[in-house]
């Protein structure tokens, strides 16, 4: 029997050896060099096939695939692979002048033909935003491409400029059929960026190593970047706390951010998400078609209190269709501050003095928020029935068949003012089910803001602000709050992600202190 006891004892001994032996951990690095070990709740599943790319495929592939242009902190477009661009609004053309002497990592040239090929791929697959306005693409010379358009607005500079380019040569040589090339490109990416893909395992990790021939002298600082996919926030938090990772991308869990900040980790704040209630106001049979009912809801919500509770002080309560971090923000505009009396009065004006009942469609992520809304609106006579849906039903309703009553939504906040048009413009890209009633005055202001006379977003800003104010006057949507979003990193990591936006990252500028 004693020998029998030896077996578990031996197992325990082996376990102890395994536990304590072979210690891992990060390598010591200097201010330049080293491997940045990142964790992320998303991982690229399509490396270099633009027609099927998701947002995480785009920004997480920025170490390899660079853009023509991108936003600066003020929301202005600044060139990356472009040198500059010329707009001729009368002729409806945009000419992209390209930086010279840049090569893709397969050795082929970055030139106007390569850009034309990339634009054409997007157009052919309906994946170039505003691609429907491109009449033709003209290669003026090796370093200039002219886009002939059927319409022009300042938004096009952003929509076309944010394209991430791949090497046409590498793509075309990767197979004999379109499907072979697509299959290859899903698992391979050849760009002009500061890094190349060294290793990738679907839904697990991707590793980038330094491109020694990168076109920006002296960059990148890091030798490599490794991104591991950890979808569970608790595990991700434990991983970075234990020192098994240097940086955690795009964290929206307030509790994790606060905890890790308290433990001395560094936080980079991003713009967060714009949270709203969207009414089914275009339905003439819905009480929400009546402006006073929408106003009553807005008056009935103590947004600073709810935002303070949900965000533990990190959420910004919203009073207009813009957050204070957004360039279209109208300073001091708060059409409907919290007032239960006003809410009841508006309901009475609308003919619903005895109260109303609405459903709010949300996913499980919005459960707490909807419960708070339910509580506040209950006090002014509006009964809320939460309708917590799985992602299938939610997306199906919000982006497909439409919803009834109210839907709780989150949308991105761009440093530019394109959000207005992406989400709530005359022909939005996201909430396009037609549920939201948009007044002729509001639509006219949106159209005016896109007048070809405005060459960039800053010129159009007065009109954009007027549209924001008009949306507020119409009680078009019910703005709630801006959430917190951040990247969490060890104190020795220096990165700008995601200060400008969740899709903006310049990995060539990231570096680490010796540690």
């Amino acid at each position, binding site marked *: *029997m004693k*020998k*029998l006891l030896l*077996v*578990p004892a031996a*197992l325990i001994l082996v*376990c102890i050896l*395994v*536990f*304590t*032996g*072979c210690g*891992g951990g990060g390598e010591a690095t200097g201010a330049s060099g080293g491997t940045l070990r990142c964790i992320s709740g998303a991982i690229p*599943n*399509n490396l270099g096939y633009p027609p*099927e*790319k*998701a*947002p995480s*495929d785009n920004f997480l592939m920025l170490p390899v695939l660079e853009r023509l242009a991108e936003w600066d902190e003020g929301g202005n477009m600044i060139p990356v692979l472009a040198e500059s661009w010329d707009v001729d609004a009368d002729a409806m053309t945009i000419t992209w002048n390209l930086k010279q002497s840049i090569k893709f990592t397969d050795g082929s040239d970055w030139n106007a033909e390569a850009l034309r090929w990339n634009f054409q791929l997007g157009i052919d697959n*309906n*994946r*170039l*935003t505003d*691609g429907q306005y491109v009449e033709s693409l003209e290669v003026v010379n090796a370093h200039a491409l002219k886009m002939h358009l059927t319409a022009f607005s300042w938004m096009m500079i952003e929509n076309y400029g944010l394209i991430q380019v791949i090497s046409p040569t590498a793509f075309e040589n990767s197979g004999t059929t379109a499907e072979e090339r*697509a299959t290859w490109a*899903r698992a391979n990416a050849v760009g002009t960026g500061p890094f190349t893909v060294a290793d990738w*395992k*679907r*839904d*697990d*990790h991707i590793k980038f190593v330094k491109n020694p021939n990168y076109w920006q002298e002296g960059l990148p600082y890091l030798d490599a970047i490794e991104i*591991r*996919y*950890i*979808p*569970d926030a*608790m*595990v991700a938090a*434990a*991983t970075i*706390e*234990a*020192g*098994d990772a240097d940086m955690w991308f795009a964290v929206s869990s307030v509790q994790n951010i606060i905890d890790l900040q308290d433990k001395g980790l560094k936080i980079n704040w991003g713009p967060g998400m714009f949270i709203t209630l969207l009414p089914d106001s275009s339905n003439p049979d819905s009480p929400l078609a009546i402006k006073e009912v929408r106003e009553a809801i807005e008056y009935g919500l103590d947004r600073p209190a709810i935002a303070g509770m949900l965000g533990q002080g990190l959420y910004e309560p919203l009073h207009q269709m813009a957050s204070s971090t957004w360039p279209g923000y109208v300073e001091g505009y708060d059409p409907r501050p919290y007032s239960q009396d006003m809410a009841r009065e508006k309901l009475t004006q609308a003919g619903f003095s005895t109260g109303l009942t609405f459903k709010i469609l949300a996913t499980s992520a919005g459960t707490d928020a909807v419960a708070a809304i339910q509580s506040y609106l209950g006090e002014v006579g509006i009964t809320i029935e939460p309708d917590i*849906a*799985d*992602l*299938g*039903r*939610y*997306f*199906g309703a*919000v*982006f*497909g068949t439409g919803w009834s009553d109210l839907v709780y939504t989150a949308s991105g906040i761009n440093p530019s003012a394109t959000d207005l048009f*992406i989400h709530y413009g005359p022909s939005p*890209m*996201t909430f*396009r089910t037609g549920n939201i009633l948009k007044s002729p005055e509001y639509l006219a202001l949106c159209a005016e803001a896109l007048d070809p006379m405005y060459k960039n977003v800053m010129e159009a800003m007065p009109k954009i602000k007027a549209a924001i104010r008009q949306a507020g006057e119409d009680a078009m949507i019910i703005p709630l709050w801006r959430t917190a979003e951040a990247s969490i990193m060890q104190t020795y990591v220096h990165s700008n992600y995601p200060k400008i936006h969740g899709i903006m990252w310049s990995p060539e500028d990231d570096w680490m202190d010796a540690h």
Partner: protein
Amino acid sequence: MTTYILRRLVQAIIILIIVSLMVFFVIRLLPGDPLIIYVAQTAQLEAMPPEMIEQLRVQYGLDKPIMVQYVNWMANMFRGDFGESIYYHEKVSTLMRERFPVTLHIGVLSLIIGAVLGILVGIITAVRRGKWLDKILTPLTYIGITIPVFFLGILMIYAFGVKLGWLPISGYTSPFEDFWYSTRQLVMPVLCMSFFSIAANARQMRSSMLEVISQDYVRTAWSKGLTERRVIFKHAMKNSLIPVITLVGVGVGILFGGSVLVETIFAIPGVGRLLVSSIFGQDYVVVQAITLVIAVAILVVNLLVDISYGWFDPRIRYG
């Protein structure tokens, strides 16, 4: 014996058909359109007009009547074609080839540890009934049976990963790449997954062994002056194993279920996590294929378990 196996195979085929029908139709009862979910999650809505979504519907055969879809799917399965994932744009067979080895690695280790340690603990607690070892180990088996896998995982991560820093918290490395790192990475997930089966096997083995060692032939063995090792291992253990073997067979199903939780907690790219993400994305083809493969694995293991009864106890005859 051959007739028995043939009959069991026919039963297995019927069960597989029922499983395939259930999986195929139940997942389609979920609200939401898989293509809308896909394009919404990949932010393609901005450039995906309704006619392109319809094109995708045709491409994935979702435009056809549901019975036609089922027949096509089954026909393709018989040809070894599991279909193509809507979300990953990848053949399901490729996805499964990437993921199953990971799950099997963890699962087989857990199964072995669960069986070996469970049987050992069961024998020890039975032979030392009422002694200090029994008093320590038996309550632990109660904890093992009742503790939820995800909670145990979180406790282990906090203790061994964050506080003590002994083990990597998450991820999977192939043992062929780095054996020691792979082993260290696997300690927590494997222990987490085998904890229940250690406890369940121990409980079963203890009661089974207690019953056997009280029988006359064991008493006779003791009276003949045989050593404890010989009495326990030669005479008592084999007869005590039958209920435990049944439990090990059931454990295969539990392992696949447990892999869903363990792979999610420890960020392991196995088939369990693929199944979860495919269910949320309503990636029909992937869910159907994985469920069917798991069903086949469980049926095969249970068939082997049934056949093994005859070896453990020659008195058992197959009718």
